[in-house]
């Protein structure tokens, strides 16, 4: 788990620790449940509303449970231009039998369509949890999903 403030420098205001705290909470709970939000609020001496306001603004904070592996496919311009985004999206939907934004019934995979991952040099790109994959092919997707399914 990577958080900020590796060097132990204190932020002058408690609220400035909020994004880092939300990452930790999300790691522990798997998602930012109302309970997690409340705990972060208590620890940082903030109102739950303040915590929720920040948590709901950023796409990487999940306010609903999600699968163990979150597959994010970039549909940005450069990935689109290399001709393979639509087939990739269709392939993943079929393979996992879910639509974008959904989670498989076993809770293993979630699938999202996202915007530019700043990986245009090896488009098309996708991300699984924190790991970025470039020059993705349908075969690669099959291998990745099979590998993760067996873990």
């Amino acid at each position, binding site marked *: 788990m*990577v*958080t*900020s*403030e*590796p*060097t132990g*420098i204190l932020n*002058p*205001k408690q*609220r*400035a*620790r*909020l*994004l*880092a705290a*939300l*990452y930790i909470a999300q790691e522990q709970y798997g998602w930012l449940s109302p309970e997690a939000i409340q705990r972060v609020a208590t620890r940082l001496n903030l109102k739950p509303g303040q915590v929720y*306001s*920040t948590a*709901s*603004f*950023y*796409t*990487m*904070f999940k306010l609903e449970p999600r699968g163990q592996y979150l597959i994010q496919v970039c*549909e*940005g*311009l*450069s990935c*689109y*231009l*290399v001709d393979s985004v639509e087939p990739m999206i269709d392939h993943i939907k079929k393979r996992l039998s879910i639509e974008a934004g959904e989670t498989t019934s076993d809770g293993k995979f979630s699938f999202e369509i996202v*915007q*530019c*991952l*700043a*990986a*245009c*040099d*090896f*488009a098309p790109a996708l*991300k699984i949890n*924190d*790991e*970025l994959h470039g020059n993705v092919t349908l075969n690669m997707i099959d291998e990745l999903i099979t590998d993760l399914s067996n873990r």
Partner: protein
Amino acid sequence: MIVAHMMFEPVLTKNIYKKDSEKISTYLANRGYEASRQALTEFTPEELIELVKRSGLRGRGGAGFPAGLKWSFMPKDHDGMKILAVNTDEGEPGTFKDRQIVERDPHLVIEGVIIACFAVGASRAYVYIRGEFFLGVKRWIKAIADAYEYGFLGENIFDTTFSLDMSVHRGAGAYICGEETAMLESLEGKPGRPRLKPPYPTQTGLFGLPTIVHNIETLACIPHIVQKGADWFASIGTAESKGPKIFSVSGHVEKPGNYELPLGTTLKEIIYEHAGGVRYGKRLKAIIPGGASTPILTADQVDTPMAFETLEKAGSQLGTGGIVVMDETTCMVEVARRSTKFFAHESCGRCVPCRIGSIRLLETLDRIEDGQGLPDDIESALYLAKNIDGNTFCPMGAALVNPARSSIMKFREEYEYHISHKKCMVGSK
């Protein structure tokens, strides 16, 4: 005739292909931390500000503000803490230079940070990095920890009275946090919504303190300016655009990637000499020169030099230098639609023209692309663009209308064909 810069010796990217380029041992083995030592022991802060002013360095994050001038705006009589905020929130579609810098040569940026902080009297530097850059976050954290261990950060750097603390702050997925005041809001733990300017960050920035914000490519230039001099830097580039620049090239090219070249290198040279030309031998149709928010250029503008003033004259902007190349099979309505979808998704929601306008613009483009376009739709899109641009807190309003407006201006016949024939002129998509 193409005047090739094949001989140009990379400066900003000279280390990145070395083995273990991100490690402090590699950096030190290549005269690392000599520039910052020199700056702190041989220069006064005023001399450094003067040096950077004379170099002509302009910001590499998109706006192109003169760096030395920005440094001189930091108050000299401020008693409390001053701050440098380091922008690694790269999210502009078509841009991937900052990711490469932080993953492969973070110490170059730390040196730039040390020098900039010494020059403006800042004692704390906050790195803001895009949440998706997992490897980048790890590299930043390791690099900063190592720099502390070697005494390049912390108390009394190089046995001077200057002290500097630096830490990493991970963003969490919001394009708008690349805008400097939105980034400050996010650093404070709030939703990243831009602030109204003035006051500018140099007066009232992070936690209300004087704050200077720089993109990491700008900071990567600083150590080289200190070592090689302002005249060396100013000798590279054009009249108003000095120094080397990393151009990210993607889309329909044989060799997508980052290419470091002098500012003022033509698009033609970058695309054909360096990025291997348009892929599969196809014909060039259009180019986005500086990331998705910059106006689209046509193939006959390929001789335009990549410099602030020349791109402005061509009706576009240098932006981040993220070049997206499109060949003859590209549907320009779809290109505009995709970019607009991105901006509509990333609008922070504060200003109505951006929040609602982007959605209305996207709906209009969706209709045209899907063959449901109405006869008035082109004019409606232009009307929306006119009323969004300039009517928002931050530059997002201007940015979001550029794909639609510029492609209508340059490729209007494609829009008309889409509406009248209910299908695409290009046919492939």
